[in-house]
């Protein structure tokens, strides 16, 4: 075991992690721990753009952006956070431009902007051009630019260091003569994949920016590595997870594969058709049609298929039609995604519509934080020195449904805030003593996985988990499907104790890594399903067929899931609620 000491440790090197690192690295002694190489992070897969009310091509302002975000999130958005994000979006885009990001340009040489789902002018009057983009590889360019600037600022990376535990201690603090126990964070334990050694990183501040949990689903746009590790380690250490029932299904995944075709395709004019050739979105969202928010489009697509208007031999997908667009326009604005269609499905998007179906895409929920990116141990207690940003966190700017492009915005705005806050905290705070034997639990976890010889295969358990999540906890949910899913997950969890990891070595033991990841996936699947069961209404990305209406009276609250072995009906997940923050927009019916 080796011990390292840093002011700030950042867990994860995607957009949020590196954005934080750029800020923190210039202010305090910072290390970034990542289980991949930084440029492999899934931020790089984001395509469409990053919205900011620059008003470079048409009238726009950040208040409209705030409204769209709030309405897009079906009013479950914390409006103070949405205001921060929409306001700071402008600076965030300009920051990136100054760091060198090659945005597409207008004829005047300014950053070009295009339409994106749910982004409108003047509170929903018409689609607006708000998304700043670099062809259809905006995420790639953001990831590269951030990495480049980390290189510039000599940020210390620990590549292929997999963080497995958060070292939390309860510390006595006296405030106003009153002594109470407060959760403090002392560091993290990480596993060096290359050597198989454990490394303890002691730090004053820790930023969790480890991304999402899409791999609980079978059909997903997410990378293989998005297994909810950051949420998992926090949850296991008693931090609640907020709004985990809300998972976004992106409408246009390549049918059967889940690989994403950006919403930018629809932003540039592509439309959806069913097997009758009908542009069905005209029925579901008469005003903005194909550019409706993702939850609505995804649900409409699933509905078309359910009602027998799906295309293909099994009638299980719909079609994304780009054939009315000029090939030159497609090449200029959407080169990558047309290549995906050609490579993976053998479909020529110039002349043929592309088979698409919703694909699991983004966790709206995550580790609860306030607008300074500080992690909350309950509805309002901050854990000093612990921060989270990006998909792993829930600020909550996305509410029950994230608008397209707001994730790239989220990582930049709150990544930056987290980095600054973490560094500032570290400059004033002292190290928290790391507990004795800090790695004992992690070692036990690894040894259990490595030495168990029950014969169960990790891949098989994971597949069954993904199958049940796809079948029962997807776009449409009912109490029945959710309960069934919970009981299946419980069964899988029991089998998980009897796995066999074939690779017994130390060096690059990715077999062991997958086993550990599966543990997090099972935990997260449970939390998501339990939270979905708890929310007896339909809102944003969460659609309960047994409760198809939004119920503001009972459920205009965030859900907070705590680890609690005594909550047996919901597989050890206890659910509480947290009020939503309103500033200026009162809930209205959400129509497009």
């Amino acid at each position, binding site marked *: 075991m080796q011990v390292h000491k840093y002011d700030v440790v950042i867990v994860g090197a995607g957009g949020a992690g590196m954005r934080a690192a750029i800020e923190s690295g210039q202010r305090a002694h910072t290390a970034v721990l990542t289980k991949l190489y930084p440029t492999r992070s899934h931020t790089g897969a984001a395509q469409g753009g990053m919205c900011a009310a620059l008003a470079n091509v048409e009238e726009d302002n950040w208040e409209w952006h705030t409204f769209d975000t709030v309405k897009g999130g079906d009013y479950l958005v914390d409006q103070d956070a949405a205001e921060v994000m929409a306001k700071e979006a402008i600076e965030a885009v300009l920051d990136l431009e100054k760091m060198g990001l090659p945005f597409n340009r207008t004829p005047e040489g300014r950053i070009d902007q295009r339409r994106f789902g749910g982004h409108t002018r003047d509170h929903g009057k018409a689609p607006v051009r708000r998304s700043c983009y670099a062809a259809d590889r905006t995420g790639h360019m953001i990831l590269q630019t951030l990495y480049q600037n980390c290189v510039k600022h000599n940020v210390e990376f620990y590549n292929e260091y997999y963080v497995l535990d958060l070292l939390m201690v309860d510390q006595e603090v006296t405030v106003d003569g009153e002594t109470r126990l407060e959760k403090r964070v002392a560091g993290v334990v990480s596993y060096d994949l*290359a*050597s198989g*050694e454990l490394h303890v990183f002691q730090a004053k501040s820790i930023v969790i920016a480890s991304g999402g949990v899409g791999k609980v689903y079978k059909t997903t746009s997410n990378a293989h590595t998005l297994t909810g590790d950051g949420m998992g380690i926090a949850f296991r250490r008693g931090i609640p997870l907020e709004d985990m029932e809300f998972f976004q299904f992106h409408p246009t995944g390549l049918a059967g594969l889940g690989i994403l075709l950006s919403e930018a395709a629809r932003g540039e004019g592509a439309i959806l058709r069913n097997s009758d050739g009908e542009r069905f979105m005209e029925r579901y969202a008469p005003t903005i049609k194909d550019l409706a928010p993702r939850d609505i489009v995804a649900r409409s697509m699933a509905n078309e298929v359910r009602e027998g208007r799906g295309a293909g031999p099994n009638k299980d997908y719909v079609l994304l039609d780009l054939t009315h667009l000029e090939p030159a326009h497609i090449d200029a604005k959407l080169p990558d995604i047309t290549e995906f269609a050609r490579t993976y499905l053998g479909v020529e998007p110039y002349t043929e519509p592309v088979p698409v179906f919703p694909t699991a895409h983004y966790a709206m929920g995550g580790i609860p934080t306030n607008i300074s990116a500080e992690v909350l141990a309950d509805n309002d207690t901050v854990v000093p020195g612990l921060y989270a940003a990006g998909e792993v966190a829930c600020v909550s700017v996305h509410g029950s449904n994230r608008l397209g492009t707001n994730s790239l915005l989220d990582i930049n705005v709150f990544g930056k805030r987290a980095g600054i806050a973490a560094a500032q905290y570290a400059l004033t705070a002292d190290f928290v003593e790391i507990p004795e034997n800090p790695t004992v639990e992690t070692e036990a976890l690894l040894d259990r996985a490595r030495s168990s010889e029950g014969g169960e295969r990790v891949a098989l358990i994971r597949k069954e988990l993904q199958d049940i999540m796809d079948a029962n906890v997807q776009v449409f949910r009912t109490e029945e499907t959710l309960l069934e899913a919970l009981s299946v997950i419980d069964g899988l969890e029991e089998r998980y104790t009897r796995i066999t990891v074939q690779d017994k070595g130390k*060096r*690059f033991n990715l077999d062991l890594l997958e086993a550990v990841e599966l543990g997090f996936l099972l935990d997260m699947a449970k939390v998501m399903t339990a939270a979905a069961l708890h929310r007896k209404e339909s809102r944003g990305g969460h659609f309960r067929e047994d409760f198809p209406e939004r119920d503001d009276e009972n459920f205009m609250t965030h859900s907070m899931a705590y680890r609690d072995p005594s909550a047996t009906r919901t597989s050890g997940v206890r659910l509480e609620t947290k009020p939503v923050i309103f500033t200026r927009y009162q809930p209205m019916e959400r129509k497009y």
Partner: protein
Amino acid sequence: MATPTIESPRSGRVSPGYSRSSASRGNFEMIAWLFMRLSGALLVVLIFTHLWVNLVSGDGISAIDFGFVAGKWADPLWQIWDLTMLWLAMLHGTNGIRVIINDYAEKNSTRMWLKGVLYTSTVVIVVLGTLVIFTFDPCPVIDGVAHVADYCPAT
């Protein structure tokens, strides 16, 4: 079963075989690169003409003998032609081999040794060739016997 002493990856960060010894400043490699292209283009003309004259035109290779060479070098144009060709070809070739040595010789000592041999032979050959072209007497008198040919000045 396992060999106990494998170093864990990255213990020494970048393996020494990959770290550039020291940044070389100056334009030597650029000039060498440029020289290869310029001399190459010139050599195409020089050598193709040389081959044409020596191997294709007239009776080709069967016509080559001392007289043929002496006949050519009696003309200063051919002297300069061959001299240019000698220098350019040797430098072009030497630089080519130098690059190949840089590519394949992994150990510093091997590289130095090979380059030593290369540069020595280049110098020897270039000096020798130059001397031959300049000091060549088309009508030598060997052991008191004059070599007579129609290009020799009448005595």
